[in-house]
């Protein structure tokens, strides 16, 4: 009886969603006025960016994105400071059993493919769906695969923090350069290029590459810290 009710409810919900969306033609404007017209015109005409979401996130609301990156950094720092309570004891991983040779051999070939996909996602952030955050997370999953497959795989925390710092400095520095060469913080000062090219969109690709490296380094650090936390050291 419960299952039938659930199925009926889901069917009703699906019917409602389907009827709602069939009313809107594909690609037709369904909101008459608003700020989106300005955004849509500006992204294609003056900024030459194919992906409107990226243009809004990085260019029109770039300061907000800088804040989001800072929030992520603070969260990672807080997590690290909690888990690193007994720093000298950290380093032993609680592994139930080591991975089989199929997994270790397979992850060797999968790891570069995952890194390539992540780099593709954040380099083409202004052309295709995706961007710095998504690409960084994909790269971090590649490191997670290696950490799960190899018992002794280690990531240098010094290199991670250097990469993270350089990426953060690049983001803030581009913002300051916009203040110097333009009028406001994070203003576009580079040539916008041709629409649908990799080298287009002014500062957007550079910022997204920096964000990608930063997110990848931070999340890899989080994964490494969690995996190397000693199970029994609760304070």
């Amino acid at each position, binding site marked *: 009886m419960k299952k039938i009710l659930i199925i009926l409810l889901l069917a009703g919900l699906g019917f409602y969603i389907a009827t709602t969306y069939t009313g809107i033609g594909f690609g037709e404007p369904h909101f008459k006025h608003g700020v989106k017209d300005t955004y849509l015109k500006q992204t294609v005409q003056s900024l030459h960016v194919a992906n409107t979401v990226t243009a809004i996130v990085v260019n029109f609301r770039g300061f907000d994105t800088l804040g989001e990156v800072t929030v992520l950094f603070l969260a990672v720092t807080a997590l690290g400071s909690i888990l690193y309570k007994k720093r000298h004891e950290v380093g032993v991983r609680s592994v139930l059993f080591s991975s*089989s040779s199929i997994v270790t051999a397979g*992850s060797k070939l999968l790891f570069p493919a995952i890194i390539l996909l992540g780099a593709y996602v954040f380099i083409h952030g202004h052309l295709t769906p995706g961007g710095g955050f998504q690409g960084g997370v994909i790269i971090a999953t590649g490191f997670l695969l290696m950490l799960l497959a190899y018992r002794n795989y280690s990531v240098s925390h010094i290199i991670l923090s250097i990469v993270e710092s350089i990426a953060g400095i690049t983001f803030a520095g581009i913002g300051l350069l916009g203040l110097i060469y333009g009028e406001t913080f994070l203003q576009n000062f580079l040539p916008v290029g041709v629409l649908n090219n990799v080298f287009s969109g002014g500062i957007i690709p550079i910022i997204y590459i920096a964000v990608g490296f930063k997110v990848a380094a931070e999340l890899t650090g989080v994964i490494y810290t969690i995996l190397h936390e000693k199970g029994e050291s609760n304070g």
Partner: protein
Amino acid sequence: MSAMEIIGAILLLIGSAFLFLGGLGIYRMPDTYNRLQAGTKATTLGAMSLILGVGFLEPSWMIKTLIIIIFIAYSNPISSHALARANYKRKHFPLILHGDVKEMDAYREVTEKEENKEEKK
């Protein structure tokens, strides 16, 4: 409809049928190994023929779809192997072992030998 479109549509139908059967199998099967069996069939035959059907419908995407198929054929067996092995190592043995039939489980002897070796070390 051209021949390519018909082949693509048939492949899409086969793929969606296998994906449906895979989902049903995950719901119906009794233990992890049988469920993995159903799930891997869904991804290998279902997803592969679905993607190949898309390649037949849009011939300019054919190379990309073949690359995706190679990726699935490479990564799916590894992941299902890792799942089954982790499940076995956590002492969730196949259901048939709870009866009197024990000759099916050749892997158990191997793993027990390995564990004994590790303990001796």
